[in-house]
């Protein structure tokens, strides 16, 4: 279902600035000539500049205004409309009509790519942005339609008719079709992405559009599944991408994609209670952002990257709060940054402060959606927050099971062995409750950890405890004893020391260097 008649407002658009006309003509020409460097520069530099200068408050000219300039080329018009709607979503609150039109456009565009024989080349960043924006608009629509409170009766009527628009099954089927048609799974299984990395994603002699869209749809599927709470399928659908074998990942070159991939995977691992795996993923991506942050400082995406960075530190705080042993696996600068942001809060989390877990979860979680359309006739039934509240309550229950144990842990740390009745007396509970609590503590440290299996959901159970114990019965007296293991860690500061030594020597070298006055005339003589 679509709303094909445009607004009267849009028909009398007015004059399209010359420079915008030029932009359109050149873009069209470069796409026809498959001139990737030029397309890339126009897409990444000229388009944002023109948007800022001429279209800060409103949309770009509608496609009818410029279609004559490009010989009414069907595919180019679809691409232009994709940019048009992306800008519209970024700058304004799109109306229901605009949302439906954008959905139709995406269907047409992906339809052409899937069924037509497309041999154009497009920059990979544009293809990633296409998938990213597609899913962002899907999320936005799902949230829009659950907000029934502020809508008039006719708007609700219109919404009811639009049940085919941004339907989750269609979205998932589109992604799946892109993956299947591009054959990306077979290709990656065959060579692990080596060819893709070698040619930077643009394999000569072929169109990169279908292949890269297939690749990015793998990440897209992970995202959609996480948004509805289906974490294990999300991780499975990433196959054959593997976050623990990072050398072969092409996404490292596209920070937006790389960050999305790791963010949703770590979140899935947290919800599946696989804290060591989540810690590993978060560590990898936070180090990555630390490295590449400066490169994007002037980019439009910089704010997004920073926001995701903060969210992932919140997730890391959750992971560390629930499984303190993860701290020893983090890189030093990640640990330092975490302590900076959450130092005192972490201490309170270790002592079982559930409110802080709630806060961190609220900040770090993605914007969940419910797959089903809302009950239009019953606006008070479920609000827009339904999906979020559901996942939050499940998470808090997970936390609640563990948050009462810190006091027990503190006592255990003091002893190398202690009898059960004595410990029960110290904690002011009875023995049965204590036995349950000890079993619960042991269980909470018994996590699944990825160990080289086929896909990211496989793994074997390991202990992630920072204090290890077991319960024994002394045969002589029949009394139960809790025996604790000794964990002796000899920590070496080698890396830290060598880094500081080198830095210090560099400083000394600078201080001792002769003043550089003679160099200038030597340069000029050249």
């Amino acid at each position, binding site marked *: 279902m679509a709303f094909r008649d445009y607004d009267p407002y849009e028909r009398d658009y007015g004059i399209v600035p010359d420079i915008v006309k030029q932009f359109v003509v050149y873009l069209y020409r470069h796409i026809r000539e498959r001139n990737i460097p030029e397309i890339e520069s126009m897409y990444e530099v000229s388009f944002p500049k023109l948007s800022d200068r001429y279209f800060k408050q409103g949309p770009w000219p509608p496609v009818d205004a410029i279609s004559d300039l490009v010989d009414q080329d069907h595919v180019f018009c679809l691409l232009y409309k994709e940019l048009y709607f992306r800008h519209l979503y970024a700058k304004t609150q799109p109306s229901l009509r605009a949302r439906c039109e954008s959905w139709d456009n995406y269907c047409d565009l992906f339809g052409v790519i899937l069924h037509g024989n497309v041999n154009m080349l497009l920059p990979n960043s544009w293809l990633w942005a296409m998938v990213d924006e597609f899913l962002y608009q899907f999320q936005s629509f799902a949230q829009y339609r659950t907000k029934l409170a502020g809508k008039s009766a006719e708007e609700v009527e219109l919404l009811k008719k639009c049940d085919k628009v941004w339907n989750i099954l269609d979205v998932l*089927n589109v992604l799946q079709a892109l*993956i299947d048609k591009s054959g990306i799974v077979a290709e990656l299984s065959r060579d692990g992405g080596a060819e893709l990395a070698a040619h930077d994603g643009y394999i000569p002699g072929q169109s990169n559009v279908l292949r890269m869209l297939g690749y990015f749809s793998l990440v897209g599927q992970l995202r959609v599944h996480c948004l509805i709470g289906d974490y294990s399928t999300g991780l499975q659908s990433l196959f054959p991408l593997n976050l623990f074998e990072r050398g072969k990942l092409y996404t490292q070159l596209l920070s937006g994609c790389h960050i999305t991939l790791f963010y949703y995977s770590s979140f899935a691992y947290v919800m*599946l209670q696989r804290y060591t795996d989540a810690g590993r993923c978060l560590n990898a991506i936070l180090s990555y952002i630390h490295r590449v942050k400066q490169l994007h400082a002037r980019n439009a995406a910089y704010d997004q990257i920073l926001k995701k960075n903060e969210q992932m530190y919140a997730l890391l705080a959750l992971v560390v709060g629930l499984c303190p042993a993860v701290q020893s696996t983090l890189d030093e600068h990640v640990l330092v940054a975490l302590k900076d942001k959450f130092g005192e809060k972490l201490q309170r989390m270790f002592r079982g402060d559930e409110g802080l877990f709630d806060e961190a979860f609220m900040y770090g979680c993605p914007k969940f959606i419910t797959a089903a359309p809302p009950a239009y006739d019953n606006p008070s039934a479920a609000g827009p927050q339904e999906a979020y509240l559901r996942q939050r309550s499940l998470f808090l229950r997970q936390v609640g099971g563990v948050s009462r144990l810190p006091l027990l842990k503190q006592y255990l740390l003091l002893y190398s062995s202690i009898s059960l009745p004595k410990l029960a007396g110290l904690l002011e509970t009875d023995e049965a409750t204590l036995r349950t609590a000890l079993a619960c503590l042991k269980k909470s440290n018994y996590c699944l950890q990825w160990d080289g299996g086929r896909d990211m959901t496989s793994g074997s159970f390991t202990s992630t405890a920072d204090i290890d114990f077991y319960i024994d019965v002394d045969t002589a007296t029949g009394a*139960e004893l809790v025996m604790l*293991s*000794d964990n002796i860690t000899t920590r070496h500061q080698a890396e830290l020391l*060598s880094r500081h030594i080198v830095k210090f020597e560099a400083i000394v070298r600078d201080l001792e260097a002769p003043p550089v006055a003679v160099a200038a005339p030597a340069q000029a003589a050249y």
Partner: protein
Amino acid sequence: MEVRGVDRYQPEKLAVLERNLEEQITGTAKYSLDVATAVFRLYQLQPSVARKELIARALLKALSQMPQQDYRILIHLLPERLVAEEPVSSVVLLAQHLEACNLQDFWAATGSCKDTISKVPGFQDAIRNYVLHSLSITFQRVSLRVLGDWLKLDSSALQQLLADKAKAGWKVQGEVVCLPLNAFNTAVQKRKADLISFEAVAPVVKSSVATA
């Protein structure tokens, strides 16, 4: 039955998937988490076609796979309105007790969903296996009385069970049961010595060679 790729998103296949799920529960088909996940996903999309008693039974079947996380995976998919009513709500309560290792409350609560449990053959045995497993990661030796309480078995049934498990390393010594030793219930003096890798000291070596 494997549910991969495009099969995951076909609401027309719901009847087939439901039938397979029922067969898994009764034990005539091989257990596969994918099918339950696909069914629950489709239920989230159309809550009106959701069959609550099938959900309850599937959740029990997943719970019997503990310590695998199958139950956890499935419960995240269900929206509030599907878990708020019987018979699903009592199964959820049961699971909460089990996850908190509150076995007294767990066995007491099984009384309230007797019907659902009776339709999932092998549930109680699977849970007992899980309890034995979690005991074996926490205890090296445990008294018979505690074991009987946690497994909700009277002494003759308990002796029978232990006799069955004797080959796996469970030994009875008077009033005390010795559990098989494994990596989790033995005290290991873990000396974690961080080895100094060459990469860590290479810059120092390099710069000292340069200035030498």
